[in-house]
């Protein structure tokens, strides 16, 4: 069925698919999970951190990147593609500051990244970027923003979303447990809870970044994440106790 239509990017299949783009989405699904949650006045990004190999320097493996002082990006998919795309986005943030004398709005830089991803789906001799991104930040209006892009070049705003491995499960979890206007603690807890659905090994494989309306990024220390994980586990225990049928009638 796929046959001859999946080789070249710039060829539609008879049923309207661009197979290379679909396959790029498959590559994204193989990447480690990333989750984003938008609260009342805070945005949280969480990623599943692969276990650092013994001899590897942990500091060089960062999955949550700054595009500018007030914009943060997490991705899922091919890390090398992400590096190139993030570099382009960083240049664009500065180019915007130079020509417009103002920092980028979150929507603007998302539109730019999505535009780059789209450009690579309509050109000869290239393949699409194999990454989806979650972009978060605050504009001058002090309203929290969370956007997602994918290899096809589509972008949209979200209250909470997940990309990468088991993203469907995590998104369903988020849909069930998301509440409007959560405060900072609740948003962080939701992000970590949703990641724990995927990450079996606990706090040391989770990375969290938070941004408040002051547009300053705060990365949680391992100890802080472990504290929230412990809190979540305690709550889970209580839930299990409650749902157990009572011993005496």
């Amino acid at each position, binding site marked *: 069925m796929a046959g001859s239509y999946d080789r070249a990017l710039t060829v539609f299949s008879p049923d309207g698919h661009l197979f290379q783009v679909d396959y790029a989405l498959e590559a994204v699904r193989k990447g480690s999970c990333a989750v984003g949650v938008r609260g009342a006045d805070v945005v949280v990004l969480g990623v599943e951190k692969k276990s650092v190999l013994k001899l590897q320097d942990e500091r060089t493996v960062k999955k949550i990147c700054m595009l500018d002082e007030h914009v943060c990006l997490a991705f899922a998919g091919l890390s090398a593609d992400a590096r190139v795309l993030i570099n*382009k986005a960083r240049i664009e943030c500065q180019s915007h500051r130079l020509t*417009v*004398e103002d920092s980028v709005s979150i929507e603007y830089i998302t539109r*730019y990244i999505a*535009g780059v991803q789209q450009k690579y789906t309509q050109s000869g001799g*290239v393949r699409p970027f194999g990454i989806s991104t979650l972009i978060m930040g605050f504009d001058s209006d002090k309203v929290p923003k969370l956007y997602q892009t994918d290899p096809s070049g589509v972008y949209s705003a979200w209250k909470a979303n997940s990309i990468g491995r088991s993203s469907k499960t995590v998104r369903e979890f988020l849909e069930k447990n998301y509440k409007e206007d959560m405060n900072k603690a609740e948003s962080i807890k939701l992000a970590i809870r949703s990641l724990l659905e995927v990450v079996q090994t606990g706090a040391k494989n989770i990375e969290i970044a938070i941004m408040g309306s002051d547009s300053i990024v705060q990365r949680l220390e391992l100890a802080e994440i472990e504290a929230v994980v412990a809190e979540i586990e305690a709550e889970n225990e209580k839930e299990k106790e409650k749902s157990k049928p009572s011993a005496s009638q």
Partner: protein
Amino acid sequence: MDTLVSKYANSASSASFDDADNLGQNMVGWDAASQFALPAFDIPMVANPVDFLRAHTDASAENRIRIQHGTTTLAFKFQGGIVVAVDSRASGGSYIASQTVKKVIEINPYLLGTMAGGAADCQYWERELGRRCRLYELRNKERISVAAASKILSNMVYDYKGMGLSMGTMITGWDKTGPQLFYVDSDGTRMRGERFSVGSGSTFAYGVLDTGYDFNLSVPDALELGRRAIYHATHRDAYSGGSVNVFHVKETGWVFHGNFDVNDLHWEYQAQPKGPIV
């Protein structure tokens, strides 16, 4: 200037930072650098347009082309926003081509541009600026800032630096950061400021403007100050005259405050007793 020449030497690839970015030459206008890049133009088919022009306008050239410009325009910030006042004479040498030129260009309901220098240059580039500002609004769902608008204009004309554009303009408006006033000219200068006067009559206007200026002027007094300053410039500068057009820029946008024939102003001010300057 070299960017222009290289644009015509190769195929249309704009200011991209990667070679891999030369995908699809029609992909213009979706990033900051190409969005605000130049409109494509025919330039004179000579090796070096700058030297060509200099050779033909230099004082020592035989039958040199005389590029003339005369105007007085002014704008100043005060507690009630910004007052913009301009004359309306267009002159070609000693010939008065028109006494009813509109030297304030309404870029959009909250941005004004003034014209001094070559009328065609000002009109064309400020209309082009208006187009860019509108595209920015459509793409970003919010109004463009005065700083960005003036930067677009100054970047546009900088590419033609030395090729004979003559434009001294003030871009003014009220945006998120409050009232703003920028001076932009065809040499590539771009300055933020509180008070500017541009044109051949600017020195005369500055004299009256600087003497009478106070940040706390009321709106009617500020409008009168602008009117008077232009009148005095038209009285002494041969290349300024006609009538005075006065605008007031407020938070809700600009307001036109009328057209005043300088002849009538002359007799009106003549009849008034002159107050002490010091």
